[in-house]
């Protein structure tokens, strides 16, 4: 590890500013480091005139104003770019289609891959910028030979490398994450924002999916996919309840199943499988959620060559822990075996592989193999 872009020559940097505290501080740090920074807020709502109200999420008028205010305080030019059409096509429609197919997508990864470090980055490069800067907690490390590696943030508790695991080397070469290399708690970031006179210092964090304002994912999907009543069955195939759309469920989900008959052993039941073909949701005991292996498709590598078979650590969701795996690339498909079974793995989710703190790459989970039954 030698230096990071943060410490090298001054760059022309386009800072993506959501209106939140992290991206504002990131832009401020980039400017302070001597880079020539321009702020940009991405308008991602299809209809700017009916921007949702409320301060959470990334596409409200309020967020746009907060971002502009921050840019003014930092003293950098600021623009709003309308990427709503690209966002709808590449993120929202994909999100709906994935759920419709019985999978559980992560739209934030998708947005980083297709919007922030594709549509936005391409436009930035065309306009003469060198890099896109965001408030993600992750580190880009430049090696002696000039190649780039993505690493976890110094502060593991804040690390967001999982949602960046889709970036390839070219995208990494133009990424700047000024928050990634400092051991900074969120309180300290807020204190830094306060010290810099940024009014977003006290703004609440956003956690939800930015295009689902009220957090009601099932309602959002129901509006787009309509109601499709079907059966909830147990592992033997016996009907134990009904649902209004298989897309409304996630593997591992326990709440909201509304099953009339209790399980024979009286223990809680979880969603084990979602089958869009026959519109059936299968439920069963927690033990049946244990997954021993999986296959994942559409691998993307955060460095040069695809991995050799070997032992890695894996992360399966944005705020999930690490687990040890053996992984091998076979005919373009990633085959993964868990050292210890893991619970609640859903097709559609991303698996991100790490070698120590280094992000090796990511892939989209296609099939899972139960540890208990060894059956898909």
């Amino acid at each position, binding site marked *: 590890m030698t230096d990071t872009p943060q410490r090298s020559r001054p760059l022309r940097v386009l800072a993506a500013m959501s209106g939140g505290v992290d991206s504002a501080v990131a832009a401020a740090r980039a400017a302070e480091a001597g880079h*020539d920074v*321009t702020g940009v*807020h991405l*308008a991602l709502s299809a209809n*700017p*005139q009916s*921007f949702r109200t409320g301060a959470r999420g990334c596409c409200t*008028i309020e967020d*746009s104003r907060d971002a*502009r205010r921050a840019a003014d305080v930092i003293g950098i*030019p600021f*623009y*709003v*770019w*309308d*990427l709503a*059409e*690209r966002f709808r096509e590449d993120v929202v429609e994909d999100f709906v289609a994935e759920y419709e197919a019985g999978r559980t997508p992560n739209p934030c990864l998708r947005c980083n891959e297709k919007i922030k470090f594709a*549509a936005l980055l*391409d*436009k930035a490069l*065309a*306009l*003469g910028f060198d890099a896109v800067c965001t408030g993600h907690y992750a580190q880009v490390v430049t090696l002696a030979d000039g190649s780039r590696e993505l690493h976890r943030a110094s502060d593991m508790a804040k690390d967001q490398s999982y949602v960046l695991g889709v970036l390839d080397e070219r995208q990494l070469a133009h990424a700047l994450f000024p928050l990634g290399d400092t051991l900074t708690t969120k309180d300290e970031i807020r204190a830094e924002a306060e010290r810099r006179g940024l009014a977003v210092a006290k703004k609440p964090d956003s956690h939800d999916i930015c295009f689902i304002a009220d957090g009601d994912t099932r309602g959002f999907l129901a509006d787009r996919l309509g109601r499709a009543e079907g059966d909830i069955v147990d592992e033997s195939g016996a009907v134990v309840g009904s649902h209004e759309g298989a897309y409304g469920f996630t593997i591992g989900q326990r709440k909201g199943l509304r099953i009339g008959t209790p399980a024979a052993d009286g223990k809680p039941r979880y969603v084990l499988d979602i089958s869009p073909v026959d519109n059936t949701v299968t439920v069963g005991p927690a033990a049946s959620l244990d997954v021993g292996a999986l296959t994942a498709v559409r691998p993307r590598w955060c460095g040069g060559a695809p991995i050799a078979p070997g032992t890695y650590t894996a992360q399966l969701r944005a705020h999930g822990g690490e687990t040890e795996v053996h992984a091998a690339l076979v005919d373009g498909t990633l085959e993964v075996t868990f050292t210890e079974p893991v619970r609640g793995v859903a097709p559609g989710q991303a698996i991100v592989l790490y070698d120590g703190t280094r992000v090796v790459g990511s892939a989209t989970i296609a099939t899972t193999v139960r540890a208990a039954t060894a059956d898909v």
Partner: protein
Amino acid sequence: MAYLDHAATTPMLPEAVEALTAHLGTTGNASSLHASGRGARRTVEESRETLAEALGARPSEIVLTSGGTEADNLAVKGLYWSRRDADPARVRVLSSPVEHHAVLDAVDWLGEHEGATVEYLPVDRHGRVHPEALREAIARNPDDVALATVMWANNEIGTILPVRELADVAAEFGVPLHADAVQAFGQVPVDFAASGLAAMTVSAHKVGGPYGIGALLLGREHTPVPVLHGGGQERHVRSGTLDVPAVASFAVAGRLAAERRDRFAHEIGALRDSLVTAVRTAVPDAILGGDPVHRLPANAHFTFPGCEGDSLLLLLDAQGIECSTGSACTAGVAQPSHVLLATGTDPDLARGTLRFSLGHTSTQADVEAVAKAIGPAVERARAAGLS
């Protein structure tokens, strides 16, 4: 730095700054009867007389407002209400699709909330309303027209509209015509009496005066229903304590704008022409917007095919050239200009616009800066494409 956004706001004239600051330290409500009040009132009334002279109006025809937007709202809503009060059949409002949003949105609001039937007159590809179009619209039923409102000069593409001829047509039918003259004042001869208009909007900060002050020129036979009710100032049409320093400063700027107009138009027109030539030389396929003949001398509006106006703005801004895409934005998101769409411009093409507007501080160096920067900027913006 090259400031080429004078149509957004132009630097205050030193004389106007002096008038403003000179009055800031003086106490007095122009409605008070005591000496301080009398002093303030004298300042206001002398300023009103100055403005009247600059605008070819009687002093009593100057209704001071907080600016162009308020004057437009007062004219459009106030005249609609008073004309409809006098005859409930008068619910039709005639306007043009190239108006500033202060008129456009007020007119639309009447349609949505006050039962108005809004009719947009056709414009040609340069954004001009033809008097015959107004005649046809009124003649269809002269009795149901509440008012007509058509701008004197367009703020985006700089086209000058035939206000005098339009006013003649309106007068034939006894229909009051309002014109937003915010961009026209100081660039073309603006004579309220000669125009035949019932009402006309002007704004101080576009002619070197301060922000937050403007006027509705209002023929004495017209009494619009107030938008702001209160103490009864300004002919009971616009209540509110007058901003004496701003009024004094507006008068100075307005007088100078009228006095210097002829020479200003000549000189700035020549500078504008050299800017147009420079842009066309650097970018041969740039399209000059607006009417080729009937246009404001300080306006140069271009469409650059294949470019996002916002991208050009960013690239020029980074080189210290300040201009505008010319179109309104919603939450900062650039929308294709309603003016360009109304003139039949392709929506994709309409996204690639830039408006350079010159003013009293513009120099040949500003033109040279644009000449140097515009070619590479367009090349870059084209590579970035339309998102």
